[in-house]
């Protein structure tokens, strides 16, 4: 068990509010291995974001425990990299200042870490845009900047909550390919929430399908592709893609 980077044990979540109780998650357990890319997919409103927020330690589950690298997150501060749906770059900061946001908050804005940030920006094609403002960049570049902002704090895992859904379809294909390759190159572990089946199939080693709310695990898929196809854009062209897609599709409760 110590080999797993993320361990979720019997997570339950009930939201309380003035108009009543909402049961969002019911007994979810799973693990993630180092450097694995896991997608969580499920019908809308089923509790995906809730699950991710629990793993990130932003909200406490009603019951259950989450361990990251063996440490119980309710007792230890863990360093996670969270990528929200919109890039959430701050418009009043330059790209470089945006990348340093996490370092500033964590009091780690050292020369070494800043150089690491600059290096990431240069490596991933944002060298010339460091001192520009977010509004001066394209959607894809902004998403890349948002990823670098989470990488620079050297997180133990990356959590992506529908990180590409704000982009138009074409950009989305390219950006998901781009982000996937950066994550792989940097050797990071990632958990991604999405409701796009083809996105999940093209990017992940493992796909966890959730039921309608309250979310439970319905099934787990491990799409396999030949070595040379193992990049999101080329996976989409592989003949096995359709088959994996259909398997996941069958497990998702859709109602029109």
């Amino acid at each position, binding site marked *: 068990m110590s080999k797993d980077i993320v361990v979720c044990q019997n997570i339950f979540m009930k939201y309380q509010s003035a108009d009543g109780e909402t049961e969002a998650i019911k007994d979810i357990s799973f693990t993630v291995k180092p450097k694995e890319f896991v997608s969580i997919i499920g019908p809308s409103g089923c509790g995906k974001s809730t699950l991710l927020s629990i793993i*990130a330690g*932003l909200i406490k589950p009603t019951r259950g425990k989450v361990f990251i690298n063996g440490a119980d997150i309710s007792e230890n*501060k863990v*360093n*996670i*990299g*969270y990528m*929200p*749906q*919109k890039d*959430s770059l*701050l*418009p*009043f900061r330059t790209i470089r200042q945006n990348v340093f*946001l*996490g370092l*500033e*908050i*964590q009091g780690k804005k050292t020369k070494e870490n800043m150089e690491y940030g600059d290096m990431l920006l240069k490596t991933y094609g944002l060298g010339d845009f460091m001192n520009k*403002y*977010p*509004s*001066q960049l394209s959607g894809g570049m902004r998403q890349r900047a948002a990823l670098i902002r989470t990488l620079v*704090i050297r997180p133990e895992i990356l*959590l992506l909550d529908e990180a590409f859904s704000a982009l138009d379809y074409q950009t989305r294909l390219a950006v998901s390919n781009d982000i996937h390759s950066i994550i792989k190159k940097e050797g990071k572990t990632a958990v991604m929430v999405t409701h796009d089946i083809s996105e999940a199939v093209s990017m992940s080693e493992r796909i966890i399908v959730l039921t309608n709310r309250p979310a439970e695990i319905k099934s787990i898929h491990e799409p396999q592709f030949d070595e040379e196809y193992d990049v999101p854009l080329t996976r989409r062209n592989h003949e096995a893609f359709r088959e994996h897609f259909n398997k996941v599709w069958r497990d998702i409760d859709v109602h029109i």
Partner: protein
Amino acid sequence: MSIFKPKEQGVSPERALWLKNKKRTDALVLITKIGILAVFLILWEVCANTGIIDSFIMSSPSRIWAVIADLYTSGELFVHIGVTTYEAVMGFLWGTVLGTVIAALLWLSPFLCRVLEPYLVVLGSLPKIALGPIFIVWIGAGTKAIIVITITISLIVTIMEVLNGFMSTDEDKIKLVRTFGGNKYHIFTKVVLPSNFRTIISSLKISVSMSWVGVIVGEFLVSRAGLGYLIVYGSQVFQLDLVMANVFILGLLATFMYLFIVWIESILFKNQNE
């Protein structure tokens, strides 16, 4: 357009026509603007001189001009302008600073916010000018009281505006700070406050015009100097020229101040259109 720039090349005939039309309308608008003012002033002057209207009560452009020139040569003009401007600027700056600080406290403590809400509503609805006499008794008849009246007028609106801005800060950005392990202090200084500079500036735009109301009312009530004082004094001694001259100067001052803030806004936010 610079003369060194080659004449727009490859402009389609349709575009050329459109540009020509636009130029013509622009010119027409400008001419009409100036024309209205000129006609108004000339009519006023002529009517006053020929006795169609009573220039003792209605004054006239030349008489107003003479009053301003008099005030200028006696050195009084800038003293009065200075006093009034000082009071207005102090009033709206303090109103904005205090309003922002109070809004920040209310944002930090949702409990306090809920507790104070009814009080804010009552104070917000109250015509603040009614408090003027009270402040004068408490603080004394002078500049201080006028500044306090001015602050009260813009304070509640500023609190409401800015608090509203703080509350509607993008949740995703707040969440982002939390994922980095940030606390409320980080959320406020890194995201909430800087995201709302625009709100604060635009509440400044509102409070700048309200602060003139506060200053003039304050000066009506107590003062011994300032444009409001001259207006009241002028009406008491039945010198309408003096009254009109000061209203005119007041109009110019208030416009300049407003444009100044618009200018600051434009340089502050040059780079960041979301």
